[in-house]
């Protein structure tokens, strides 16, 4: 009997740009497992994703649906708000659920249960990396922070940045908020302009195309400070929207680098597999999260010798894994399944990304 991997990731709605690459990556991994590795535990692997539609309720329904069909592993959307319901369903069914890339520390065994994981580093790591890059490497002493209120991810990303930037000596000039989908930033702009000094760096914690929109608005208003953000920037449509005109002096922290073997020695091989499968090369690091999610489950199941939820969870807790998105080591359930992981740093020039290397923050803030 085949091993069914069930997905409730979002193919439509605001979450789609982050989840769809993951789904695509996962498909490649499934094919690879079946073709090259004889499946998982000798059983063929099948992956079915039912669209979660960027709506927690639908995500929950989809997860239940795939579980009812016999799924033994759940792939949850890339975010706590959307992914949580899928993991809760998985937890109820006693199987392991893993988010493609939820990075909010809320996505932990504390809140979801002892069989739930996220593949991503937590925002503690992501924000600390950004803060240290700004202050230590670039010498930017003052920051202006805009937080999108839309999901837990955007909020906690800012939160940890504020804490860490402050902790290592930086100065926050102003914290500002808005909610995704507001197409008007005149308020934020007005407040920014009212500051006595221009900030050295602007940290924008937002989501999707809004990143480009805010950046554009800032630049159009004559503000030239560099822009810094998290993995949601790792989205080619954002880069395209920024274009050559606005796509410079933008930096972000993400999961890995797809462009070359600098990201990971196996990367070129993955890129080739991916290209063979989908007909075009991967364009964001999020495809790697999909591949890794499936491979991680496969490795853990092989170690455990079973797909049983508790056993796989234990295997995940007790071992270290070498992944395209870096080396990963989970803490045990009592400590929240903290993902010990490094972060990749990428910069944009005229809309084109370039790899700045792996970073590992020294003292990330506590979750």
């Amino acid at each position: 009997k085949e091993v069914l991997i069930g997905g409730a990731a979002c193919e439509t709605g605001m979450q789609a740009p982050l989840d769809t690459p993951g789904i695509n990556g996962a498909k490649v991994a499934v094919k690879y497992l079946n073709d090259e590795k004889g499946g998982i535990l000798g059983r063929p692997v099948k992956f079915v994703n039912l669209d979660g539609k960027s709506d927690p309720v639908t995500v929950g329904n989809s997860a239940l649906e795939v579980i009812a069909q016999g799924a033994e592993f759940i792939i949850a959307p890339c975010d706590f708000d959307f992914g949580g319901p899928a993991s809760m369903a998985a937890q109820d069914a006693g199987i392991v659920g893993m988010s493609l890339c939820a990075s909010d520390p809320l996505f932990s065994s504390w809140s979801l249960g002892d069989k739930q994981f996220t593949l991503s580093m937590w925002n503690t790591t992501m924000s600390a990396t950004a803060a240290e890059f700004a202050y230590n490497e670039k010498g930017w002493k003052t920051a202006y922070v805009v937080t999108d209120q839309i999901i837990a991810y955007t909020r906690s990303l800012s939160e940890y940045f504020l804490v860490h930037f402050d902790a290592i000596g930086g100065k926050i000039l102003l914290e500002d908020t808005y909610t995704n989908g507001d197409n008007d930033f005149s308020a934020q702009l007005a407040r920014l302009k009212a500051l006595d000094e221009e900030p050295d760096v602007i940290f924008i914690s937002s989501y999707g195309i809004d990143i480009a929109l805010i950046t554009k608005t800032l630049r159009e208003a004559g503000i030239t400070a560099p822009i810094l953000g998290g993995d949601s920037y790792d989205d080619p449509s954002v880069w395209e929207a920024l274009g050559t005109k606005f796509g410079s002096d933008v930096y972000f922290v993400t999961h890995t680098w797809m462009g070359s073997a600098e990201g990971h020695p196996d990367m070129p091989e993955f890129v080739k597999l991916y290209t063979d499968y989908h007909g075009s090369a991967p364009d964001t690091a999020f495809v790697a999260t999909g591949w890794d999610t499936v491979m991680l489950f496969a490795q853990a199941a092989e170690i455990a010798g079973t797909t049983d939820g508790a056993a796989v969870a234990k295997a995940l807790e007790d071992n270290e894994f070498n992944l395209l998105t870096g080396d990963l080591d989970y803490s045990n359930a009592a400590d929240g399944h903290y993902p010990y992981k490094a972060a990749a740093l990428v910069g944009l020039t005229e809309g084109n990304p370039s790899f700045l290397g792996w970073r590992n923050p020294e003292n990330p803030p506590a979750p």
Partner: protein
Amino acid sequence: MKIINNENTFSILFFLILFIIIYFVNFFVGSAIFERTVTNLFIYIILVVGLQVFMGNSGILSFAHIGFMSIGAYSSGLLSMPIKMKGFVLRDLYPIFENVAFDPILSILIGGIFTAIIAAILTLPLMRLNDAAAVISSFALLMVIHSIVVGWSAVTNGPRTFFGLPKATTLEIALIFSFLTVIFAFIYKNSKFGLLLRASRDNDIAAESIGANIVYLRWFAIIASAFLAGIAGGLWGHFITSFSPKSFYLKETFLVISMIIIGGSFTVTGAIAGALLVTIGYEFLRWTEKVIKFSDVITFEFIGLTEIVLSITIIIFLITKPKGLFPFKEIGDTINKIIKKE
């Protein structure tokens, strides 16, 4: 006044039997997904029948209903959420709520009452508006409620997912609540208040001229309607256990309004029929989507197809039956007629 007339009795009996049949069908199917669908259906029946109490009898389209539902869902969730979960979900919660964790069903009832109180306060001045102004003000009310839910992070977790509610709503509970709702709707419709409100729906000036106080009639109806929406919200919240403000927004509003209009808003039968029909349609399409996805036959992506088919069906349906399936007559009237003929 004699409330349980023939029409009421037959209709209520009919739905009692129907609900029990559905219950037993579920029992024999025995699938978790099916049970989930049926439970959801019963909750929707509460919602749509509750909407019918106001909208059907007063003739005023109300958009605010889903907003009331969200008040019920959030307030009951706030009351019943285990203290530990509150630490995760609502980190800025006001201290008075921090140590509250009531029984879920009690919370749902309190949520319903709370919703009714809020509705009573908010809607009284709006009840004198007619036509477009009334519809639009209810739309604005939905937006106000939605924006408050989105903005008031301390108790709702803002636009983010509100989770951690105990799963307390079972099929049986949903069934009982929805049956009570149906009984209430029928009794109300044929009561003095219901009749006068229906009169005012047809002609407000004439209704005033026979002594109807339209503002209070409407007000009473919308409070009752909001109470039911609040209960439905609470039940739904304790069934789904995690949701976000988006779960109570335009798409859901139109889903509910489609249900009532497809069924026929003037009748309780219509409201139930609409809920049934749309749910069946929706679930059928979802089922098809799922079967196709699992079958490996069709590999291209067809996201959005469900909605497309559903919208086309709704349009075609409304073109052929613009007044709905049960425009004037309750099922009980028809049964009554058949019986009398024999």
